[in-house]
């Protein structure tokens, strides 16, 4: 239910990293999600498509990777971004 907040943080992290690395156009963001993480991928993608407008991630695809090696709650990590 808090996918809006998670989405906002993903974009904050990605945009900051893009500025620091001189990436103007983010094309991909990879999110690793642990097994007990209470994030719904479909909802997160829905929020992402709306929230990415007018950011450096406007053309980005969000890839959500379930990672069964990560246990415990609140385990969602922005693994990497890519772009030009």
């Amino acid at each position: 239910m808090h996918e809006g907040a998670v989405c906002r943080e993903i974009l904050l992290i990605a945009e900051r990293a893009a500025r620091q690395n001189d990436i103007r156009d983010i094309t991909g963001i990879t999110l690793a999600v642990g097994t007990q993480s209470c994030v719904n991928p479909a909802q997160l993608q829905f929020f992402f498509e709306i929230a990415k407008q007018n950011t450096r991630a406007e053309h980005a695809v969000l890839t959500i990777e379930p990672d069964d090696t990560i246990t415990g709650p609140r385990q969602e990590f922005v693994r990497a971004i890519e772009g030009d």
Partner: protein
Amino acid sequence: MKQVELNESVYARNDSIAQRVRQQLDAHGIRMFNLLGTPGSGKTTLLEQLLREDAQHIAVIEGDLFTDEDTQRVRACGAQAVQLNTQGACHLEADAIEAALAQLNLDGITTIVIDNVGNLVCTAEFALGEHKRIAVISVTEGNDKPRKYPLIFQTSDFVVLNKMDLLPYTDFDPVRFAQDVYALNPHAEILHCSAVRGDGVQKLREYMTGNWEQEEWQWSES
């Protein structure tokens, strides 16, 4: 095409603000409690009972989607209160708490209670800088809540089982409930309460003002 490895937690920003909030509280010698639970579990009624004895030293941060009704209730008890309206968001985050603290006069305050948005899911995921978490569950909600919503029980220090005066009218099994809570969190303290009658409130007050260690906030299970 550039690729940048990050491995940054989406909770990192909130957690660092929560830590800043905690440092500010510790500098003032103030304890903060995060009151969590379902809508209607009796969080605000419990708070009113707590304030009945000592409204001068307790300040309240009220979280709700809409209205300042709970802030009015708390102020009627004589306590300072700040209302946070999330306008639809299901939980409070640390930056809102930091802003609320700036609105409170902390002189003479020993305790701050956050009356969180009524929600068993999202509220548990966000650290607010609190020293302890108090989950409020009522017997009318049914026995299954620890099994269905484990995180709130895993991360709460006190579990208040409220509306015990209604127990004879429900099929709630307090023994099974305690077993389920302890399976998730062996350190949890379960308190039987009836907030409307005031039963069990003194025990909670003693816990809140007791002599426990001010341990670092952390997610021990991660």
